[in-house]
């Protein structure tokens, strides 16, 4: 039973216009900084702004640490659940879904109240501590995506046999996870990593409420005070998101197909 071709085209064209008009409009707007001509002036101003460089650099570093923390947390856990405690899977999966249920603003509100300077664990008492808390917060936001990516990757390899083989050859747990499991799920981990990067790089709520000089609050500040730079920044952000998603797509081509479910 087919949908009529006319309606399919009509839907497709209306949909495409809804999505492309704002992108075209934003791009056009970003070129209008110089009166009477199109120029890349807004981009030049943005890239030359030292605050852009500082906040973007800060967010990149935070994103990298978030990815490291996420990998350290998720890979051993997902591996161990598959190998030894499969009955725990529903519980762990539910926990990894919690960040989709609890809004980010609520999570960070909890942090601010629980880890203030007078608490037993005063993360917020120092700048470094706040940075660490921000990274932790981002790792929780990325948890659903990272866990799903890694777990899908683990499905394609025979965890039990690889582990036994490594143990027979005398490998310890660190060697097994670091040199056997991780390289085997590397593509899945990288997919999770790029998705994490896309989510973290422009995140506003947590960074703003923890008062850290990240890219998201900078975007908001420029949006409130400038006319043409925000459009340029929107185009740059879209390009970054696009880049991350393209990398994931390219990576998925190299991913091994599931052994149980060959496509």
């Amino acid at each position, binding site marked *: *039973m087919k949908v009529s071709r006319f309606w399919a085209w009509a839907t497709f064209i209306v949909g495409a216009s809804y999505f492309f008009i704002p992108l075209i409009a934003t791009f056009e707007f970003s070129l209008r900084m110089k009166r009477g001509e199109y120029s890349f002036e807004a981009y030049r101003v943005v890239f030359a702004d030292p605050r852009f460089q500082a906040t973007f650099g800060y967010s990149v570093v935070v994103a990298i640490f978030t990815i490291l923390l996420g990998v350290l947390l998720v890979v051993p*856990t997902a591996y161990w659940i598959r190998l030894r405690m499969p009955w725990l899977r529903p519980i762990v999966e539910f*926990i990894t879904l919690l960040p989709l249920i609890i*809004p980010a603003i609520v999570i960070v509100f909890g942090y601010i109240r*629980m880890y203030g300077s007078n608490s037993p664990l005063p993360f917020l008492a120092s700048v470094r501590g706040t940075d660490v808390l921000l990274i932790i917060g981002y790792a929780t936001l990325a948890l659903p995506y990272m866990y799903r990516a890694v777990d899908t990757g683990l499905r394609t390899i025979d965890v039990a046999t690889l582990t036994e083989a490594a143990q027979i050859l005398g490998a310890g747990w660190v060697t097994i996870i670091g040199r056997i499991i991780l390289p085997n799920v590397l593509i899945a981990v990288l997919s999770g990593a790029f998705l994490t990067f896309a989510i973290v790089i422009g995140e506003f709520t947590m960074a703003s409420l923890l008062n850290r000089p990240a890219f998201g609050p900078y975007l*908001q500040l420029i*949006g409130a005070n400038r006319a043409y730079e925000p459009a340029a920044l929107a185009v740059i952000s879209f390009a970054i998101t696009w880049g991350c998603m393209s990398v994931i797509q390219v990576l998925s081509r190299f991913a091994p197909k599931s052994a149980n479910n060959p496509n």
Partner: protein
Amino acid sequence: MTNVSSTISSGAPNVTPPPAARKRLPLQWLGVMPFFIFALMFLILPTAYLVIGAFQNNQGEFTFENIAALSQPTIVSAYWISIRISLASSVIGALAGFAIALAIVRGGLPKWARPATMTFSGVASNFAGVPLAFAFLATLGRLGLVTVGLRAIGIDIYSLGFTILSFWGLTLTYLFFQIPLMVVIITPAIDGLKKEWGEAAATLGATTSQYWRMVAIPVIWPSFLGTVVLLFANAFGAIATAYALTGSSLNIVPILLYAQIRGDVLHNPHLGYALAFGMIMITGLANVLYIWFRTRSERWLK
């Protein structure tokens, strides 16, 4: 573990004594400990702290006062507008996303249409937050391309009462990530509608509309509703886009909570906890519904 070892040791007295088995149990748990400690410290306890705080007064005594205080007009109107925007953007987003997914799967469009749409949807569903607000300001703001273009042909949408800082302005903006999210989630469900069902219906003399009404829609329905509630929760918790678009002029719950965290605008910290509690209840309920719908839909779509 304990059960297994006790049956073994009772059956064969010479096998390893229970102490060794008892030592293995915690070792096995050691592997998942970092994850559970992390989840407890940075996900569960902070949330529980707020939830408990919602039911306490400043002296730490149990009370329902904060929950009752949510009924003041500013807070009720904030919840109401948040719910309306989330509902409108999730229902419209789901319908539009479903139509697009249907068009690319069953519409006989050229081969490139499907992968192109899926790739773009992956990008657009992740393009949210502050930059999305900028994009819509450049499109439908006072100087936006569409606003100016329509004015040139004699339609001044701002004099007709439209503003980007309004209910419809925000809904239209949210659709930019809601529709693609729907496309990403629902396309596999449409793929799951088996060709044989359509053929069987046709063989039995069903018309196209009968096939949709009696076969396809009942099968798709749970996935559709499940995705609607997921989109609802997605919009309900979002703040960055709305904040960058409207500042604090549009009084939705996340923006009110943001102002409360920044400067205690409600003059009662525990009322802030109650506000957060209300948000968790609503997104939590939406997700319970989502899981329920999903288990129902999985019956058919395997």
